[in-house]
């Protein structure tokens, strides 16, 4: 990664540059640019024609007019549209149609929770819906964040995709840093390639939450443990593509050549009828 130390206001570059910023740094000056609307991502604010950093990180520019800051911050801040893995804490409410699950989204201090209506699952009705207990995992999307209310989640979607919903209890939950989780979702990153490569030889399921939680499931005890350790090594590699590639090859070999794996018994029935 080409990291530059410029602190003067630069003209908007034609290619991507990486500029370290601390709060108050002016990264770009837009007086010479003809941008009518500028799209500002996290960590950045616009002061007249300057793009200024409000946190510490690497300033990013994406054409045509998007600016944001990459940060190491490990504190997840819920944002609408984020796909997250939540841990069910409890169920609230009286009327079945109004009940919600209180779901923990994970934070360093001060537990960040959101609410998920118990019917907000694809195909759920009052009589037939997931019955989640404390500690169960769900993969959902943040529907709304308002200043004076709780974060609202949902596991339904407008499309036919049905990957939202409860995650099998027998899967493994890997707690990752936010940057690592983001890299796993970014096309072209070593972490993303790692996931693709594993998938070629090993059947597995994974859900990646941008709140720093990654759920893994292979259904077999040993291969799941190996997969978990692969993610752990990949995160420790801190973006080093070679290290990740080598680890991936090693783990895939080991899993593929395993003959004595033990299946994980999963007797949980999430979807039930007539729940008390």
């Amino acid at each position, binding site marked *: *990664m080409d990291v530059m130390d410029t602190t003067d206001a630069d003209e908007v570059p034609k290619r991507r540059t*990486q500029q370290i*910023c601390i709060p108050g740094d002016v990264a770009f000056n837009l007086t010479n640019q003809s941008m009518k609307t500028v799209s500002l991502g996290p*960590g950045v*604010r616009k002061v007249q024609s300057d793009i200024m950093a409000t946190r510490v990180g690497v300033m990013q520019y994406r054409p045509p007019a998007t600016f944001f800051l990459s940060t190491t911050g490990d504190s997840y801040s819920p944002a609408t549209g984020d796909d997250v893995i939540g841990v069910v804490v409890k169920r609230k409410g009286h009327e079945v149609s109004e009940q919600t699950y209180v779901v923990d989204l994970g934070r360093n*201090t001060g537990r960040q929770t959101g609410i998920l209506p118990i019917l907000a699952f694809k195909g759920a009705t009052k009589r037939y819906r997931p019955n989640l207990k404390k500690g169960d995992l769900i993969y959902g999307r943040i529907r709304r964040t308002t200043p004076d209310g709780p974060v609202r989640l949902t596991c339904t979607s407008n499309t036919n995709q049905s990957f939202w919903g409860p995650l099998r209890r027998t899967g493994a939950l890997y707690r990752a840093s936010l*940057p690592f989780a983001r890299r796993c979702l970014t096309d072209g*990153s070593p972490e993303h390639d790692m996931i693709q490569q594993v998938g070629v030889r090993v059947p597995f399921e994974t859900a990646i939450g941008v709140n720093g939680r990654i759920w893994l499931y292979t259904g077999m005890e040993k291969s799941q443990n190996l997969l978990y350790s692969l993610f752990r090594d990949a995160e420790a590699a801190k973006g*080093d593509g070679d290290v990740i590639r080598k680890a991936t090859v090693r783990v895939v070999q080991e899993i593929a050549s395993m003959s004595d794996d033990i299946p994980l018994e999963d007797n949980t029935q999430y979807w039930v009828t007539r729940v008390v």
Partner: protein
Amino acid sequence: MELISPLTGLRRDGRREDEIRDIKCHFGVAKDADGSVLFEQGNTKILATVFGPSDAGENDDDDGDLDLLEDPSGLECEFKLSAFSQQDRRTGQGDDPRADEYSEYMEMCYKVVMFPHKNENSVVKVTCQVLQADGSHLAAALTAGTLALIDAGIQIKDLIVGCTTTIIDGKALVDISSHEELQRLPQVTVGVIARSGEIIVMDMKNRFHKDLLNPILAASLAGSGKIFEEVEAIVREHVKNSAPNFTT
């Protein structure tokens, strides 16, 4: 012993009038906190921690009208002088009155550079605890608190830096140590936004003639500038070292 040696023209710790002490920062030392920094300015060591933004809790309705007087800025600051921080252990019957004052100064400073929270009912708590007191406590606390806010990833407009200055025989000494503090000389502590030179907070100790104000203030701003340079370099280095952990 004199503050400035007549022989060498240097201060007791070997510095010149306009030289600041060595600054070191260790980020993320308090794992439980959202942001933390162990800030060392010479022998003054401050542990600054930031918690938040977190739920501020329900408003106590029994307060009645007092709710209106409550500050909705969502910022709570605390300045603490540890009992073991100075030469004599302070068993302290009550709170040091200066601690409350310094806490308020911290709030005044950080409020200026922080943004109103996305959530109405959230609060950020900044605590600066002096572990080793060798002068310029408020100044160091202001700087340390800013660094902790940065470590916590809380958005701020700019960095705040503090500097304490004293003046003797017409010479302004910048970034004073505890020996220089105990001399009952005029002292001025400023909390500034170093880049613009804007003074947010100014604390004065020991009455002095107004003619001394300008020289002391000028030296304070110059000293703050130097402290900011050091701190800026440290932060950039810290970011560069964490750079591999960013998203591409």
